[in-house]
């Protein structure tokens, strides 16, 4: 059985863990350490932790990140405010498995290529946030979605791979936090253009959406935020993760024969 990775994305902000909707209105959820403990107990495949205030703040909170990742015995990727490869080395030393770059893709591409050369492409995830511009053309965004670039998602994905990124996390900003399902057209455009694994993100509301990301979107892994931190749309906070049996029955068995990896 091919086990496609199912990845909770946790956002750090406001002194704790938050969840946004369409990249806005961060809602305070609680303590990220507690959340990671729960994901660890539930044996989540992997975690992505993004400090959405780090770029603006201009630093990486190493001690806080170490406190959080030391509770997780799965691969953990961290993103937010990374400006040089010494910071990457420090993150790896403290237990982070991969670094996630977003703003650096457009503003300091040298960091991406240096990190890939020093730590290997498999350690570098390019996070590409996508929103349509005024002419309804999809454009990649940086700075946590606040700044539009002139690149299409496919262009920035190709650039990221050329710089040495080993994986792409592709987020549809207008779907994020909506439970409406992934933007499979966006996913397919990028998965067809690059040959590194692409992680679908933004919009997952139920396990069936994971199937869409793989079958229609061609993705190698699926990520979600709200699905794993809320009991449902417009419902209260509940840290949750599907069981092995649920994933096998509702996800992995339904993608058999699909070209995924």
């Amino acid at each position, binding site marked *: 059985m091919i086990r496609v990775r199912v990845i909770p994305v946790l956002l750090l902000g406001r002194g704790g863990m938050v969840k946004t909707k369409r990249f806005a209105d961060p809602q305070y959820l609680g303590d990220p350490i507690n959340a990671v403990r729960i994901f660890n107990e539930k044996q989540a495949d992997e975690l992505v932790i993004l400090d959405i205030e780090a770029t603006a703040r201009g630093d990486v909170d190493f001690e806080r990140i170490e406190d959080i990742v030391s509770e997780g*015995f799965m691969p953990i990727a961290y993103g937010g405010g990374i400006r040089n490869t010494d910071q990457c080395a420090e993150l790896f030393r403290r*237990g982070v498995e991969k670094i996630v770059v977003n703003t650096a893709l457009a503003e300091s591409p040298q960091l991406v290529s240096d990190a890939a050369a*020093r730590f290997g492409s*498999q350690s570098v995830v390019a996070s590409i946030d996508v929103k349509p511009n005024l002419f309804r053309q999809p454009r990649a965004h940086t700075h946590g979605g606040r700044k539009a670039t002139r690149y299409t998602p496919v262009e920035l994905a190709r650039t990221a791979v050329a710089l040495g990124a080993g994986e792409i996390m592709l987020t549809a900003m207008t779907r994020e936090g909506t439970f409406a399902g992934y933007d499979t057209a966006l996913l397919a455009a990028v998965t067809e253009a690059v040959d590194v*694994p692409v992680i679908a993100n933004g919009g997952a509301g139920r396990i069936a959406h994971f199937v869409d990301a793989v079958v229609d979107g061609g993705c190698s892994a699926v990520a979600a935020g709200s699905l794993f931190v809320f009991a449902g749309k417009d419902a209260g906070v509940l840290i949750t993760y599907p069981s092995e049996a649920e994933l096998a029955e509702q996800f992995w068995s339904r993608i058999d024969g699909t070209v995924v990896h």
Partner: protein
Amino acid sequence: MIVIVDYGVGNLRSIQNMLARAGFEATIARDPQTIAQATKLILPGIGRFDYGMDSLRARGLVDVLNERVVGAQVPVLGICLGAQLLGRGSEEGGGGAGQGGRAKGLGWIPMDVVAFDRRRLVNGEKVPHMGWTDTTPAPNAVGGAGALFAGLDAPRFYYVHSYHFACDDAQDVLCSARHGYEFASGVRRGHIVGVQFHPEKSHRFGKQFLANFAALGTAAETATSAAAAAGAMAVGA
């Protein structure tokens, strides 16, 4: 004393944390003196092969490792890049196929490290191979002396790699996994063990695997092996 070798490459704290969770204390060390006192060594590592080997050399650790592992027969576990370094060399950095090029390894296990053969990835499998993959232990890995897969039912581990082992001798294969095609995902020659996967990032499976390595050659391991052997005999009867 279990010593995790710090040569500037890899997530040492995760390994130490997982060992602690499994009930074993481990020391992270970068100085030859501490490394020389180890009763078990763990060689971690992520990243490029040539960078890893250069880092070992730059820190003056190759001699002490050779002396302890090859001379004093101290058990060693290489993880990911640390496992690849156990071989002769790697295609990553131009030293593969036994050519002894720039990226020459420690040479403790007769193997090369080769890139995934993209011609054999016929279903569009991507490189790097990244994710949780069912892992099949070789028969001697389960119940034999030093049972590294004891207590592991249908194990799956987390992998992240673009290169894999290519052993001269099939006897050295500890376990295998499939990504497009079946490849050796673990190697073992006596007290020298290497795994491509990340036990420190593989939940209860990794915890059990690390505990099994930590118990190698101890009374607990002898008991486990005896129990496994007894189980095998009972099945045989």
